[in-house]
């Protein structure tokens, strides 16, 4: 459950469905690219812009040529589909990731430490 270290990335992820993909870290899935090629492997990380890092990848070219790669980085814009494994519960995964962000944001208790968003004092 690695949450991004950047506040900007965290808020982008929190308000979009990228957070679902971030919850797929560590699972084996297939990512289909917009040029009709496909990469099947274990998701290492996904950032807020949907850039995906995969490990132990079987990469199928758009011509159909298959190759094996140790690591693959796919730019977010080049992704068309991401297959979600059957055992993944979409709603639950999103909620878990949101909780992780919530924990990081409110780390150190309410009144301690430097806060990300300051509450309006009445």
């Amino acid at each position, binding site marked *: 459950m690695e949450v991004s270290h950047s506040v900007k990335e965290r808020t982008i992820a929190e*308000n979009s*469905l990228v957070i679902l993909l971030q919850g797929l870290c560590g699972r084996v899935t297939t990512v289909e690219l917009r040029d009709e090629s496909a990469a099947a492997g274990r998701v290492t990380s996904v950032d807020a812009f949907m850039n995906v890092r995969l490990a132990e990848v079987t990469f199928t070219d758009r011509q159909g040529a298959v190759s094996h790669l140790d690591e693959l980085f796919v730019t977010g814009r080049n992704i068309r589909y*991401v297959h979600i494994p059957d055992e993944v519960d979409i709603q639950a995964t999103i909620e878990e990731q949101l909780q992780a*962000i919530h924990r990081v944001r409110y780390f150190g208790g309410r009144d301690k430490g430097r806060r990300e968003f300051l509450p*309006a004092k*009445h």
Partner: protein
Amino acid sequence: TEPRGSRRRSPSPGRLDVSSSRFDPLLALYSPRTPLPFPAAPCFNNLAEYESFQRGLRRPPGRRAAPARRGAPAGRASRRGPPAADPERIQRLRSLMVNAGPEQEGAEGGTARRRRRAPRNVLTRMPLHEGSPLGELHRCVRDGVRINVHIRTFKGLRGVCTGFLVAFDKFWNMALTDVDETYRKPVMGKAFYAEPQLSLTRLFDRLKLQESSGKKGADSKTVSEELALTNDSQTLSLRAGSGRGRAEEERERQKHLGRAGEKKTPGDKCEADVGSRTAHTEGDGAGGARARSQSRRRRRPKVDYQQVFTRHINQIFIRGENVLLVHLAH
């Protein structure tokens, strides 16, 4: 103001005092006993945060009709923008808010202060689009309506994904369940420029034809007749002019080849191929010539780039950039 105790310890008190003329910033950074002029001041990361903090102080008095505790009169006067629209707008916005109730409590401000006004994340944003097309999408999530998502390729339609929507966001990224995808691989090379626009009717007609041709054991005559019929009956016509020009050219050549006979000739192979790829054109009277070209294509064992594929995927995530349109199935 002289800080307490620093007179005894620090070498020269003025060097750690921010307001003094002998302030030494480097020493202040490294000294363990730098006195803060305002220890209780809130820290902000940037100017925008400071501004929103200030606004947050001013807004509650205005909304709750409580006497203003802070804020210069000048500031209050400047914020009185459109007074008539505000209460109405606030009402409308409030009706959309997820946690509308607890916020309006004035008495809350004391001890049990809420940590956040209301959590704003992808899940809470889904119901907020009421009245807009994204609101329709949310209705599909809520009511479990089966939707057809048209997927785009670089130009035109790639295919359709039909499934149940689980989640979406403002980019039209979607998470679908129980998905049946019907699609066609994009055509490359010279035919890319001659290809007529794929529409949904053409896609499914092609699929139906493929399935029927598979079942009947490739009875080329019947299938080619069917293809001619369906092409004539298509009503959608969205082709670009250039595509039509090339396609008509190919069709002209096709007619000549067709009339010459049904035999495969190696010289005409590639032409017929390209011609057959553009066979999904419509509004043409030469159905018969095309039928003969279709039968020639079907008998050929080559890879057919116009083949329509279907597959079933249990759960899929679609990046919103690739979505052409979303069609709700009733």
